[in-house]
């Protein structure tokens, strides 16, 4: 028996009639229901098999209502003719053939007669569907390629850096510092001990701590005599030393070891950070020695601090290490200044000369920032984030994308990649979208090339004395990076560079501050010598040249000689500071505001802004400003 649908007339209500009424009839107010196939078939009063057959064919054709009614009427006429010719309903059904096949062929034929706009729409929709299919197929291929990408971690930069730092054990200072720090325990070395000296309310506490930790001080002094620091990243010996001392410093069981080759950026340098505390202890001891009139101990402590600073500038020292080294040098110079201001008589001429020589030869007089370690950090990120084609190129991997997301939570989409920060739905969405985001991130090679090129531009912009630096050239790497990240697509393209490009302005500023305070320390010692010889202060710094100074050092903000006034019978050595304006030795509201903001030539409007801000005033180099403790 043929696979007919059961046929029954449509229930007649006004909604159904409205549905089957042509628009023209409806507009004339007639609910004709002329397009109702079932009513049409029912009205023909054909035998049930024929009604069912017609309904099956018409319904199966999935044509428009107008087309269906036309086909239905023709089939009704056909079967009525057949019955009229004496054929039975069963014979007619049999001769008709397959209703399913008929519906399919009728649909195909009728579609060819549809209007041009419909044909165009059909072609367009098919093209659209094909495009969507192609996109989905392409995305599937992209996803497969993305998820098959695995980084190849070839370099262990921890070991490579350590290899450059490794020296014979007898030449290493670090084990001595480590022991000193472990023996020092949790003792807090307050910077007020140094700044306020014996006038401070915690001085008794300082003296007691210095007495208690004499052994640590000796170890630090011994360490400073060693030629190299020899601090190694993720050194198992540090872990063992901590275990032996039952200490959680300098390493704990969860601290990364070099052989584990975790991200280089996870090297937290606990040992280097600790060097500040050891240096402050020495500075406090220098203050104590000055009070008891022990000039030799003062010089020993101060030169020890300078040596520690120099040791920290090891080969491949990270930017963080270099900044700590600069900070330690500042602590040493600051302590020198305070002793010169409060108790200059404690130092003999010879001791003063030795100290001046030590300061002048700090880092052999060559103070520069080294960004090689930053490049190693970037190369390490690349090897962990990208595939490696063996020729320096590769594509971002899922692991790499997660690394970048971890560094950049403000990007909503990438934030969803972090399981700790999102739910299951967000993770699944992120998984689906990750290949697309990955495709937006530039290749390993193009990111490395941009990074190197920006570094070259940055280093070139900082050549020569800082007062000649061109701000436009200094800002060029930022401008280039900003324009490279300008469009939504390219925002992701150079994400690795955007995340890892170093904060070089702060590094250069800190380095130049080191140079300036070194120069100012030489001037301060020269002034003390002048005062000892003449019983009064010179009228100008030029009088110190050439007997006590080869030349008056330049103010690093404008290249002019450092400024000098005698006020209330006391000399004041100062720089014009970041506002580039000589305020006659008037300090800024807060001392550090005098030198925060960077070097280089400024546009007039930028200068005007600075001169009307809290940066208005001068950078008082000597004697040290005591405002912070008052």
């Amino acid at each position, binding site marked *: 028996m043929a696979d007919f649908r059961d046929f029954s007339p449509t229930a007649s209500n006004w909604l159904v009639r409205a549905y089957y009424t042509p628009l023209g009839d409806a507009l004339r107010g007639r609910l004709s229901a002329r397009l109702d196939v079932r009513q049409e078939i029912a009205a023909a009063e054909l035998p049930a098999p024929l009604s069912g057959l017609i309904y099956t064919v018409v319904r199966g054709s999935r044509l428009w209502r107008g087309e269906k009614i036309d086909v239905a009427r*023709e089939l009704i*006429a*056909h079967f009525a*003719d057949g019955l009229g010719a004496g054929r039975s309903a069963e014979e007619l059904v049999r*001769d008709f*053939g397959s209703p399913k096949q008929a519906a399919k062929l009728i649909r195909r*034929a009728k579609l060819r007669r549809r209007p041009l706009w419909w044909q165009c729409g059909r072609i367009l929709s098919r093209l659209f569907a094909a495009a969507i299919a192609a996109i989905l197929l392409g995305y599937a291929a992209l996803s497969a390629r993305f998820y098959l990408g695995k980084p190849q971690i070839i370099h262990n930069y921890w070991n490579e850096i350590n290899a450059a730092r490794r020296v014979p054990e007898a030449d290493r200072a670090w084990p001595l510092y480590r022991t000193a720090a472990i023996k020092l325990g949790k003792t807090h070395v307050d910077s007020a001990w140094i700044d306020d000296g014996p006038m401070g309310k915690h001085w008794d506490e300082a003296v007691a701590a210095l007495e208690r930790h004499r052994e640590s001080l000796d170890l630090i002094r011994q360490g400073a005599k060693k030629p190299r620091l020899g601090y190694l990243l993720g050194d198992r010996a540090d872990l063992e030393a901590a275990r032996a001392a039952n200490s959680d410093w300098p390493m704990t069981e969860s601290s990364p070891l070099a052989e584990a080759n975790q991200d280089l950026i996870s090297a937290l340098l606990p040992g280097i950070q600790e060097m500040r505390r050891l240096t402050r202890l020495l500075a406090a001891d220098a203050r104590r020695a000055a009070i008891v009139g022990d000039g030799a101990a003062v010089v020993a402590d101060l030169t020890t601090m300078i040596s520690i600073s120099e040791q920290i500038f090891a080969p491949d020292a990270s930017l963080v290490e270099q900044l700590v080294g600069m900070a330690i040098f500042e602590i040493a110079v600051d302590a020198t200044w305070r002793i010169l201001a409060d108790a200059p008589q404690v130092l003999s001429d010879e001791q003063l000369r030795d100290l001046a020589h030590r300061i002048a030869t700090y880092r052999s007089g060559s103070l520069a920032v080294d960004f090689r370690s930053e490049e190693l950090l970037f190369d390490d990120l690349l090897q962990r984030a990208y595939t490696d084609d063996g020729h320096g190129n590769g594509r971002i991997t899922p692991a790499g994308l997660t690394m970048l997301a971890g560094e950049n939570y403000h990007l909503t989409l990438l934030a969803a990649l972090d399981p700790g920060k999102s739910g299951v739905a967000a993770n699944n969405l992120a998984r689906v979208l990750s290949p697309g985001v990955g495709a937006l991130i530039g290749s390993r090679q193009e990111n490395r090339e941009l990074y190197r090129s920006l570094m070259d531009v940055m280093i070139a912009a900082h050549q020569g004395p800082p007062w000649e630096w061109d701000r436009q050239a200094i800002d060029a790497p930022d401008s280039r990076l900003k324009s490279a990240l300008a469009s939504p697509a390219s925002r992701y393209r150079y994400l690795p560079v955007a995340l890892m490009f170093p904060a070089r302005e702060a590094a250069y500023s800190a380095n130049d501050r080191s140079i300036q305070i070194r120069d100012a320390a030489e001037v301060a010692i020269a002034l003390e010598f002048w005062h000892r010889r003449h019983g009064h202060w010179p009228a100008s710094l030029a009088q110190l040249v050439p007997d006590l100074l080869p030349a008056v050092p330049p103010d690093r903000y404008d290249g002019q000689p450092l400024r000098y006034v005698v006020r209330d019978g006391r000399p004041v050595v100062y720089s014009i500071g970041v506002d580039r304006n000589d305020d006659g030795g008037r300090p800024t509201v807060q001392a550090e505001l005098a030198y925060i903001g960077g070097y280089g030539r400024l546009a007039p409007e930028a200068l005007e802004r600075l001169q009307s801000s809290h940066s208005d005033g001068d950078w008082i180099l000597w004697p040290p400003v005591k405002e912070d403790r008052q």
Partner: protein
Amino acid sequence: MRIERELMRGAGPVAVLKLLEGGSKYGYELVETLASASQGVLDMGQSTLYPLLYNLEAQGLVRAEWRDGGSARPRKYYELTAKGKKRLAHDIAQWRAVAGAMQELGVLKPALGGGAS
């Protein structure tokens, strides 16, 4: 004898066009005429005929018109268009060429009155 589907696909349209050359006809009439004139050889199921007619109509070879036809129930009549006539002439020429070639190959025997017609 019923002929193969592929052969019918080529023969069906030209047969219908030829029947319509004699004047307009409705669906059932065409089915009956085809079956009787071809001794059942070209007896195609109505499930094939109506799509064939709609295709010819879509190609502009025939035109359809509802007429009362003298009875109470209206019928849809099909008639050749000018384009349909041209196509018929063209198709007949082609069929003749095929039949001639078949005769040459001995597949067909010449009709008693002469060549294939």
